[in-house]
């Protein structure tokens, strides 16, 4: 009988790396999403073009290729990244591009009358965005952001291929050491699923909290 307790420690270590990656990647993705999403709505052509190029590039190429690019090619131009940095960079930029479209769509979905009300109240463009449009748009974005975060969680498994010791990597280690494939892979599948459930549960409760002040405002 195999001593599973020691191997379980490995899996837990992997889970911690996966959670770290997901959190840091999400933060970067969130920042990029707002920068690029609002950039696409900018009045300046240059900003719009930059944001569009970013979004199209990162949505058009595969996360896998971007990760390999960050890890293998960037060092050649003098940018040395640890696997963790490369992973966070690729995941954050990739998911950020998808989320940027969510930001744009949500901001555009806010009714014209809200924009007109901002003008009537003599709010500046930035003030109107900050105090009127974004608080409402954020609620629209939240469910899709939750989906994006789950996509990011699933994409973290790819970093195992650039030798970062996440869940998938540790499962391979356990498999190599015990010769048992079923147990490690079934275990990590369940762990990934639980993490995904946690994310969707967290987003849903956040949504309820945020919606509280807006009762009756949204139709």
């Amino acid at each position, binding site marked *: 009988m195999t001593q599973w307790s020691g191997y379980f420690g490995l899996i837990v270590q992997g889970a911690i790396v996966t959670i770290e990656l997901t959190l840091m990647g999400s933060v970067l993705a969130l920042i990029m999403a707002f920068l690029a999403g609002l950039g696409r709505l900018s009045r300046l052509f240059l900003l719009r073009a930059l944001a569009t190029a970013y979004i*199209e*590039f990162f*949505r*058009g*190429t*595969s*996360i*896998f*290729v*971007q990760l*390999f*690019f960050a890890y*293998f*090619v960037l060092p*050649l*131009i003098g940018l040395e990244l640890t696997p963790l940095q490369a992973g966070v960079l690729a995941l954050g930029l990739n998911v950020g591009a998808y989320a940027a479209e969510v930001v744009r769509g949500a901001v555009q979905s806010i009714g014209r009358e809200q924009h007109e009300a901002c003008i009537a109240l003599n709010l500046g463009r930035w003030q109107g965005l900050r105090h009127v449009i974004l608080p409402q748009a954020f609620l629209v974005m939240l469910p899709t952001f939750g989906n994006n975060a*789950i996509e990011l*969680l*699933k*994409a*973290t*498994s*790819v970093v*195992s*291929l650039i030798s970062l010791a996440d869940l*998938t990597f540790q*499962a*391979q280690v356990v*498999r190599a050491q015990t010769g048992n*494939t*079923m147990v490690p*892979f*079934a275990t*990590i*599948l369940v762990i*990934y*699923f639980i993490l*995904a*459930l946690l994310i969707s549960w967290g987003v849903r409760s956040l949504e309820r909290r945020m919606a509280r002040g807006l009762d009756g405002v949204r139709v």
Partner: protein
Amino acid sequence: MDWDWNFVWQIMPTLIQGVKITILATLLGSVLAAIVGLGIALARRSPNKALSRTVGWAAEFIRGTPLLVQLYFIFYVLPDIGILLPPLVAGVIGLGLHYGTYTAEVYRAGIENVPRGQWEAAKACNLSARQTWTHIIIPQAIPPMIPALANYFIAMFKETPLLSAITVLELMNQAKSVANTYYRYLEPITLVGAFFLAISLCSVVLLRWLERRYGKIER
């Protein structure tokens, strides 16, 4: 490190070979995903509660866990119970199953979008359940979902590099093997990115056309 065009032309034939496998995997995976998705969507609508619950949970589980781990599972665990699959077949099954759970949602939305009156009219014309589906519901439900389905097929195309992890010799794997042979990463990985970007951009044009052609329901 400098860009070397001679090296590019030297490795091009190998990469083209990889592109062929990538496209083949995407096409086969798309067909499988379309079938699996329809199966899941129909099972979830079934009046048999046990069936619809089980399928619903299974789909939720597959959607919440990473494709990479599922591919490992299919490729490494199934042989333990006597199912030995060639890498490409395992990859196509993984892609088809994973994206089938996504396309199932597209089918569900498409079917629910068929107006109630159509069901009632079918009943009034004394059509059997089978006739209702094949002659009334499916023909009306499919065209509006084509753009959404195509969207998932493009997403699947971008996930095919994962197949390199289970030793399918697709584009990414070919690039990695030439990179490891000549110890030059810049050109192969960049070219993989360029290939993906080019094919994705072409498919986006195709998608726009599909949206114009099928996106709106003719009334």
